[in-house]
């Protein structure tokens, strides 16, 4: 049996650095607590080297001039944890959620898929790095040994079976404990008084003596130090929730900096989806908005408002650049209107699209490109003015609505029926005047004889031919009834004869020119 452990050192700091990778080379400290009682709970290597320590107050940490202080974010940490699970799940179906910063996976039998354990461990570390997390990866013959090794050694470590005792011996005693608590401190104090400094010395102690002095817990820890524990992992099935969160230190007002953050979030989500061989068909953006500058000083206690946008895609996609552009265009058309405090971005997972291309299929736009094009065109002509037509079940004029344009994928079987003429193809079309033109009509024997349309000079003069009236009405059972008489009229124009549709609104008693036959 082989197990791999992924451990994220300095977990609170990694959660911050994942969304701000430019801070990796700087001194970063993570604070927790309510102001002014904030304390340092996380440090990166630079800050440790600079002399900062866990437990310092904010005031003490600020004594270092170049230190970057960030508040701890539970939401960001849970996103990192979810990313870790996704990373592990992409390599093995048997994944144990050991701790918030540790994941163990069973890699037995995975050699044929991913190669030897060393390669798999390297791939795991690379995948975690792609997800924005710098993690230690260790492979050992039991899950606890792998976990302890990952805590103790940075980078990728592979322990061959039977060498756990030897390789773990150099590690300090702290790696035996996942968290800092009273038991840990008491245990470490005891061993320090005994002169025990590393796992090799602890493992060499007689088991009976340990049992007498430290009890059952001590025996377990000694087995851990020897790499000799044995247990079965508890596999979890991580929920398919792909959500990334950013809690901002300062409010965002402009869309341009927001785009940078959205880009990072989208890249993370796309990497996670890709790790699970999934795509998305729906993106949800939720912004927590502040009430203004006062809100950030804490003087304005009014509750925040939320701004939500949902981006529905016609087909499952997985392209962060396309998503970003779509979100940008959407936000330009519908700006939040207030400073942004917090950003949630989630993706609804969907099965990735598979397309079988064909040499003889008719041309069809690529869905990704088409979505971008439609969004851009919407930005030019306005929302709701681009799409395909859906006719409504009514005889009312303008009985249609616009819906999202999603061309159906051409089918090769149908493509054989190309060509040929429809016998009834040459249908006389009507060109609608929008808005319809109001007209003054003179009647003779109850028929239009003379028409004048002030807004369209061509539509005036004597009616040389008319047909009608064609009466229609409807929706009298609703609040918006309609009734109209339609006339088809011909007018002599300078260039010939023009045919128009003249409408009399029976309810309003007004004449309109609805369009021209063309």
């Amino acid at each position, binding site marked *: 049996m082989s197990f791999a452990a992924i451990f994220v050192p300095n977990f609170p700091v990694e959660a911050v650095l994942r969304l701000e990778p430019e801070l990796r080379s700087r001194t970063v400290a993570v604070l927790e607590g309510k102001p002014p009682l904030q304390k340092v709970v996380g440090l990166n290597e630079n800050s440790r080297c600079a002399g900062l320590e866990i437990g310092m107050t904010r005031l003490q940490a600020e004594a270092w001039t170049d230190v970057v202080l960030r508040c701890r974010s539970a939401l960001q940490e849970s996103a990192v944890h979810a990313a870790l699970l996704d990373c592990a799940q992409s390599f093995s179906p048997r994944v144990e959620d050991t701790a918030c910063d540790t994941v163990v996976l069973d890699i037995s039998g995975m050699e044929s898929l991913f190669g030897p354990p060393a390669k798999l461990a390297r791939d795991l570390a690379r995948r975690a790095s792609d997800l924005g997390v710098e993690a230690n990866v260790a492979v050992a013959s039991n899950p606890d040994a792998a976990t302890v090794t990952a805590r103790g050694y940075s980078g990728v470590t592979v322990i061959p079976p039977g060498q756990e005792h030897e390789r773990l011996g150099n590690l300090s005693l702290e790696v035996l404990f996942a968290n800092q608590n009273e038991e840990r401190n008491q245990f470490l104090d005891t061993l320090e008084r005994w002169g025990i400094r590393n796992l090799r010395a602890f493992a060499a102690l007689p088991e009976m003596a340990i049992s007498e002095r430290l009890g059952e817990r001590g025996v377990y820890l000694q087995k851990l130090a020897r790499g000799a524990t044995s247990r079965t992992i508890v596999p979890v099935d991580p929920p398919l929730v792909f959500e990334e969160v950013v809690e901002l230190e300062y409010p965002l007002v402009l869309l341009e900096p927001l785009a940078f953050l959205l880009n990072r979030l989208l890249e993370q989500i796309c990497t996670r989806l890709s790790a699970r061989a999934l795509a998305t068909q729906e993106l949800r953006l939720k912004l927590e908005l502040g009430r203004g500058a006062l809100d950030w000083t804490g003087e304005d206690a009014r509750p925040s408002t939320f701004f939500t946008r949902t981006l529905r895609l016609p087909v499952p996609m997985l392209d962060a650049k396309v998503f970003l552009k779509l979100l940008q265009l959407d936000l330009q058309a519908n700006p939040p209107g207030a400073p942004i405090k917090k950003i949630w971005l989630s993706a609804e997972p969907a099965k990735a699209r598979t397309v079988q291309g064909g040499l003889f299929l*008719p*041309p*069809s*736009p*690529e869905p990704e490109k*088409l979505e971008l*094009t*439609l969004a851009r*065109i919407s930005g*030019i*002509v*306005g*929302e*709701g*003015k*681009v*799409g395909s*037509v859906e*006719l*409504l079940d*009514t005889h*009312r*004029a*303008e009985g*249609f*609505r616009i819906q999202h*344009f*999603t*061309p*159906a994928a051409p089918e090769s079987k149908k493509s054989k029926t*190309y060509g040929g*003429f*429809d016998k*009834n*193809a*040459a*249908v*006389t*079309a*009507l*060109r*609608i005047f*929008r*808005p*319809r033109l109001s007209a003054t009509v003179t009647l003779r024997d109850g028929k239009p004889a003379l028409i004048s349309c002030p807004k369209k000079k*061509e539509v005036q003069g004597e009616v040389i*031919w*008319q*047909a009608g009236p064609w009466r229609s009405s409807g929706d009298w059972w609703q609040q918006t009834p309609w009734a109209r008489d339609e006339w*088809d009229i*011909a007018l002599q*124009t300078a*260039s*010939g*004869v*023009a*045919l128009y549709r003249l409408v009399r609104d029976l309810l309003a008693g007004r004449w309109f020119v609805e369009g*021209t*036959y*063309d």
Partner: protein
Amino acid sequence: MSSLLVCAQPATGRPEAFLAREGPALLLKHLSAVPRLSRVTPASRLEVRPAPETVSSGIAEIDTLTGGLPRGCLTEIYGTASSGRTSLLLSTIAAATRREEACALVDVSDAFDPQSAAAAKVDFKSLLWVRCGPDSKKNSPPRHGGTEKYSSSQPDRSPRAWEPCLEQALKTTDLLLQSGGFGLIAIDLGDIPPSAARRIPLTSWFRFRRAVENTPTVLLVLGHAPCARTCASLLLRLEGQLSAIRPQLSARKIPEHAQLLQGLSLQVELVRSRLERKPAQSDHTVLQTRTAWTG
């Protein structure tokens, strides 16, 4: 003809004269001897550009006249009101959607009638309708049932008032051409006054022609007067005939209350076609359209 044809400056620097009878061969020989010009292909040996693939317009008379609408080229259809331009456009769109091709209609004056398109058997799922308009939100279509919420004030129809719509149409067409994958892109300038349509820069038409080249897209421009000028590979002029209603006018047997508009009688003229090596002579055909209610 024995006159002096060419006086070239060969590599030797000594001018030589060529006679018409042996001139071309001698000239080629001399040019090929010049190292700088050795790779230049003579125009007489250039490959003939292959004729573009054509597709049906959906109307047999038009296809007989033109040989079909060329892919990768700009086709322009123009005519006055009631000349049948829109009927031809809808037939072309219907034919393209029957071929399962995605189509786009850039409707500059927002004049598209979905009922007419349905009668022409256009598959709406394959048709992208872009409604241009200066005040998009105010003129947005009714969402349900077609309650007309348009402003009662009529828009200004001066040529300058169309500029925003034309700008939107040009930008939209650019995007659609760049996007690719459409079998037909139609720009409807049917209600745009010729004075406004002529304001479209010639560079835009050149750009469109270049963008559509070597693609399977048919770029169709519908207008009141020709505006794409030399960029149009196929130019059709449509004209309505008084005979569209004349039979009914002369049909005294039909009582006045039973008059019915049955369709249009159209004359189609092929003004220009660049599909062949030699430009086609002007040619005509006549076709009839029918109204949706005549069955």
